[in-house]
């Protein structure tokens, strides 16, 4: 990932170790926990962040999620945009390709 947050298809995003992603039954949702904070994730955000393991490239992610959310319009663009926002917020790091 370059300085201006633009992702390449071969990049392999990884959840920042300061953040903890897990299912929370009482919220019926995935949540992101970090020092002094909680973020409740919607289903698509959860599916994307679950795949930020440093193993999967962005293009692999897009392929997997496209079959999962077959009805969503322009899913590729949405995934890139969400990942770039997540990177800007410090939720994910980029481990390169």
């Amino acid at each position, binding site marked *: 990932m370059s300085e201006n947050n633009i992702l390449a298809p071969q990049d392999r995003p990884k959840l920042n*170790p*300061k953040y*903890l992603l*897990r299912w*929370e039954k*009482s*919220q019926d949702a995935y*949540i992101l*926990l*970090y*020092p*002094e*904070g*909680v*973020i*409740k994730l919607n289903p698509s955000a959860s599916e994307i962040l679950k795949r930020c393991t440093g193993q999967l490239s962005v293009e692999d992610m897009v392929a997997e999620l496209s079959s999962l959310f077959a009805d969503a319009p322009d899913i590729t663009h949405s995934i890139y945009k969400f990942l770039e926002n997540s990177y800007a917020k*410090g939720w994910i790091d980029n481990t390169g390709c």
Partner: protein
Amino acid sequence: MPKDGSTTQAVSLDGQGKPMWLVLELTYRCPLKCVWCNNPLDYEQYGRKELNTDEWIRVLREGRELGALQLGFSGGEPMLRDDLEILVAEAEQLGYYTNLITSGVGLNHERLQALKKAGLKQIQLSLQSANRQLTDELVGARAHDLKIDVARMIKAEGFPMVLNVPVFRQNIDQVQQILDLAEEIGVDYLEFANIQYYNWALLNREELLPTREQIVHAEAVVNEARQRMGKRMTIYFVIPDYYENRPKACMNGWGTIHLTIAPDGAALPCQEVRVIKGLEFPTVREHSLSWLWNDSPLFKKFRGDEWMKEPCRTCDEKEKDFGGCRCQAFLLTGDAANTDPACSKSPHHHVIEMAINRARSNNKEPRPLIRRQPGAVITSFMES
């Protein structure tokens, strides 16, 4: 009510009536004597009543059942509890995100490793200045060098770290030096928290409140550092509500997301609330956490907006700030249901303006600071 920085920073999750933030004040005991301490003035009387390990474990279990997610181990100095590691391990197993809030005194290499092993997620360490003499003077003990050592150990063990700097007149001009030190240590989150004026801090307010000029300067230094450091370090700057003209959204509203358990087991909407006279503070020894949170008269007292008087009742900002802080309203106006006088719409706002004017005055007599220590104040007249 303290440290609402933590509520405004990041809780983007609506509590939906759940106490998402659970703070356990494991003890009021502390080796330091900070003049801004937010523990009660009569903290000594709680020493005999501290919950034991099994009682805290029950609180942890019931807290998770109520939907609590973030857990703070606080005090006093929580390192003085030798069952801390047991409680962290239990909390971890229950699924909390565990935060340790400490002065650093009592943290050593062995206990850090034990806490890591128990699953502790994050450590918030307090530091008062970038200078040994000043820190030691402010906390009333030789603590500065130890704190710096502990900060480096925390990073070496791989914990995310919040460095919390309580800010007041004596250290606010050191913001740049503290930023440099934090950067060198590799702090992840640096929080400059202008202190809030309750308990010991209120006793010493005249000597502690910074001037507006000091705050403006400090904030400019922080903004410059934010530009420079970007994502490497997150910097919070909590300005004092005295200079805001609008009250803080204290605790995100009474009994909405915050639940504090005091050392004696009292379930509190905030850590300071026992300053309000005439309320009853039932404990986890007599009641379930569910009853205390959902049904106790204390938590219902200022929940929602039914209790509000003018100007809050018809104010279009009441959903935003909930009328401010009930403790501050009580301490400065005598009625906890009044508008927080930090609000410029409050008919009592002049009490805040007077305090600010005194802070600016150059020709006042300096007063000695009252340290938090046994016998510093006589509290036997405080029983309501």
